[in-house]
């Protein structure tokens, strides 16, 4: 890991820290108030705030996790650097697509 990748990983971790706290608080709130999926969707649909919140979350997670996977592959597999980078980028893109699809599902429809 060079200094550029290191900074991206630390920066995304810093972004995620407050987002994770809010995310967990939301989970506790929803479960303790016995909210159904319909109740939750009623609050999230059309909400620009929740769309922005979870979109940033998804992007930060995708970058952070793909860098972590890159490190694991680099240190624990015989793959060369080019293939390791390709795997990490692919993994990050999968997370972006799946994550933003989930955000769209609770905000748009």
């Amino acid at each position, binding site marked *: 890991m*060079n200094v550029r990748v*290191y*900074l991206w990983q630390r920066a995304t971790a810093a972004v995620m820290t407050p987002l994770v706290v809010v995310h967990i608080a939301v989970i506790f709130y929803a479960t303790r108030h016995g909210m159904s999926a319909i109740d939750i969707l009623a609050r999230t649909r059309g909400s620009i705030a929740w769309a922005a919140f979870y979109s940033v979350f998804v992007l930060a997670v995708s970058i952070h996790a793909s860098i972590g996977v890159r490190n694991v592959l680099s240190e624990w597999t015989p793959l060369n650097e080019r293939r390791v980078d390709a795997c990490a980028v692919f993994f990050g893109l999968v997370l972006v697509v799946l994550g933003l699809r989930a955000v769209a599902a609770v905000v748009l429809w």
Partner: protein
Amino acid sequence: MTAGTNVAVNTELSVSLWRGAQDGRYETYRVPQRASQTVLDVVTFVQRHIDPTLSYRFACRVGVCGSCAMTVNGKPRWTCRTHVAKVAGRGKLEIGPLANLPVIKDLTTEMQPFFEKWQQAKGVFAPTKTRHDAVAQIEPDTPARKAADAAIECINCGVCYAACDTVRWNSDYLGPAALTRAWTLVNDERDGGNTARLQAIAGAGGCHACHSHQSCQELCPQALNPTATIAALKRRTATAYLKGEIKL
């Protein structure tokens, strides 16, 4: 009963020594137990009284030269200052060459990769003055000098390098000793090579590869803390990169 007490009641030690090169094996010897016996004493006994073909490396015998490091019961240690009573559980010792380095023969490793990484980390002083200039006056209480002093007593024994998981996983990683050396020069106000040095340690095998497992600081015979110096280098190189002082 402690391991030390247990050893004291034995009259002989069972000592397994690595014999051969990389594809060697352990062979077991019986060595008389002595009071205040060091691991180096044990190895020397085998070489002087049992098998003179045993190869190992030592020089000062007092913890200064850093040449006698070996793997003792699974952990890298300086053998001249490691008492048998502290490490020989049940009177048994297994002594091998340092890990993460090629084995030349028996307990002797090839140290060239270790010192080449010092070169790669720009661990060489880059003077800013000539012999015609006045001697630099260095205040001992400045933060930079204190930081350098805290890391400067490295004896190049290779214990931290052999203990490091990241070195084992990533052959390009410079390792704790080379980075600690770089840190002392980063904090040396007489040195003029910091841009090149920070550039050298900001790459793929540099300080950011460290996982902070802290095996280096746990086993360093000089009680240095390479983990802390590497963490400081991460901050210093990150700052330099953000300011545009170094490029990748």
